């Protein structure tokens, strides 16, 4: 006879999300916070004068002109520069994640590698991104490789540290459990180890993504003839504050959007098993 028990926990789970008033919902607060930011911007701009600090409308109009007509310095239309910057960032991002994960796992499982690489990582974490950008430009010249190299060097140590930590934190009790049930190495990697590394991978992804574009812009400002940084440098030379603000805002928005659409979604989906709501 099967043992039948009612599950009050499940019934509770179904009844759980009690919606609050509309204005306190998360999307509402977020929209309000964004609008407040724009409002503050306009107010400060009014007070300080439009020619020193143009407001959001003026900046928006100015950048829209660039993006729509494609006007700008050099041979290329404006969207091209955005694409170039994004490409450099994605390329460096991929390299940093792959190499960093490999090194991190290695340090997590091998004590010799750990002691050996430990200091290198500390050195890597300490060197400012600006220095890497300057060094890269002197080594590789005016070339995409300069930006990519600089970004990789800045992000790599951070990726390594995260994955290293994650590897060390793998639960040995779960490995024993898997061994008792005679799981193969492949199965253990896939279902026991990788899921435990995932939160650390995501931490590394988010950091890398947020830092990568800052370094890209620095490298482009100092030496490259394309990319968002190049545009910033050009308009800086022309003393066009509206354009500088416009390009900054545009690229910030693009990066935030990518983060919100791609990374956050993937993150929420991959970690939906976590006990945000613990029942019973």
């Amino acid at each position: 006879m099967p043992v039948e028990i009612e599950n009050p926990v499940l019934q509770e789970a179904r009844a759980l999300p009690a919606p609050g008033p509309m204005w306190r919902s998360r999307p509402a607060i977020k929209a309000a916070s964004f609008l407040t930011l724009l409002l503050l911007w306009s107010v400060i701009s009014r007070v300080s004068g439009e020619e020193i600090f143009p407001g959001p409308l003026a900046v928006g109009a100015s950048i829209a002109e660039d993006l729509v007509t494609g006007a700008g310095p050099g041979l290329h239309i404006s969207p091209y520069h955005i694409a170039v910057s994004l490409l450099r960032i994605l390329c460096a991002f991929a390299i940093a994640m792959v190499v960093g994960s490999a090194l991190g796992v290695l340090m997590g499982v091998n004590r010799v590698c750990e002691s050996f690489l430990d200091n290198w990582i500390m050195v890597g974490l300490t060197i400012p991104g600006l220095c890497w950008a300057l060094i890269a430009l002197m080594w590789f010249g005016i070339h995409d490789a300069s930006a990519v190299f600089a970004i990789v060097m800045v992000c790599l140590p951070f990726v390594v540290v995260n994955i290293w930590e994650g590897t060390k934190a793998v639960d040995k009790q779960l490995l024993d459990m898997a061994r008792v049930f005679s799981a193969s190495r492949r199965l253990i990697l896939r279902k026991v180890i990788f899921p435990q590394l995932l939160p650390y991978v995501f931490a590394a992804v988010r950091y890398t993504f947020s830092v990568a574009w800052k370094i890209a812009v620095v490298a482009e400002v100092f030496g490259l003839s394309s990319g968002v940084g190049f545009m910033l440098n050009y308009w800086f030379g022309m003393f066009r504050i509206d354009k500088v603000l416009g390009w900054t805002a545009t690229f910030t928005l693009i990066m935030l959007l990518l983060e919100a659409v791609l990374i956050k979604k993937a993150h929420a989906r991959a970690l939906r098993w976590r006990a945000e709501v613990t029942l019973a």
Partner: protein
Amino acid sequence: MRIALENLSKAFQHPNGAVTQVFAPLTFQIEGSTFVSLVGPSGCGKSTLLNIIAGLEAPTAGQVTVDGRPIGSDRGRSLRVGYVFQNPRLLNWLTVAGNIEFALEATGVSRERWRALVDQYIGLVGLRGTEDHFPLHLSGGMQQRVGIARALAIDPEIVLMDEPFSHLDDITARRLRSELIQIWQRERRTVIFVTHDILEAVYLADRIVMLTNKPARVFHDQPVSLPRDRHYGDRALLDLAAELLNRFYAQAEA
């Protein structure tokens, strides 16, 4: 089936060179289809003993045999073990069904049988309806039920249980014990149930093997012939528990 521990000993060497003997050469047999409880004080090496039977640790000397054939990774015979841990040790990123499927996949059960087995054992432990839930969204008692279902679903030759109810509140623990016995009466698997709770052992087991403190040895072997459908209030059950407790104190002072 008969499982025999033959002159089993286990010693740990500390970094400073000192050696701790976990158990003195340990010898006893377990008949198939019986529910045996190993009772001993905390830290007497009960878990180590289960780990050796499960093949997680190697004994320093001696061996474990199944029907006369030694087990171990290099010895040809391996034992299909269902292990229920003190903490459920579930894979929290897999659903309830996914956790049971993990054990099935690990032990090489063919994929077309998974659905039926998952269904059968989730029903057996009373978790129907939770198949798609993640463990962290369940209570401790429900998590341990998943652990039990996982251990039984692989059709184990032996079920090892390491104080599986010690982290649960008393009411939940009692309910799970009574369910465990009902399941056991249907399936009649060989169970080694480790506990430090004598009353729990008397309630559950056909036989109680009592171990001393480190280095552990068997100091008493008690068959329990109380009729099934036991109740905590039963006179005979309480008397036996009291007697065993006295034996334990007498041994500890000797």
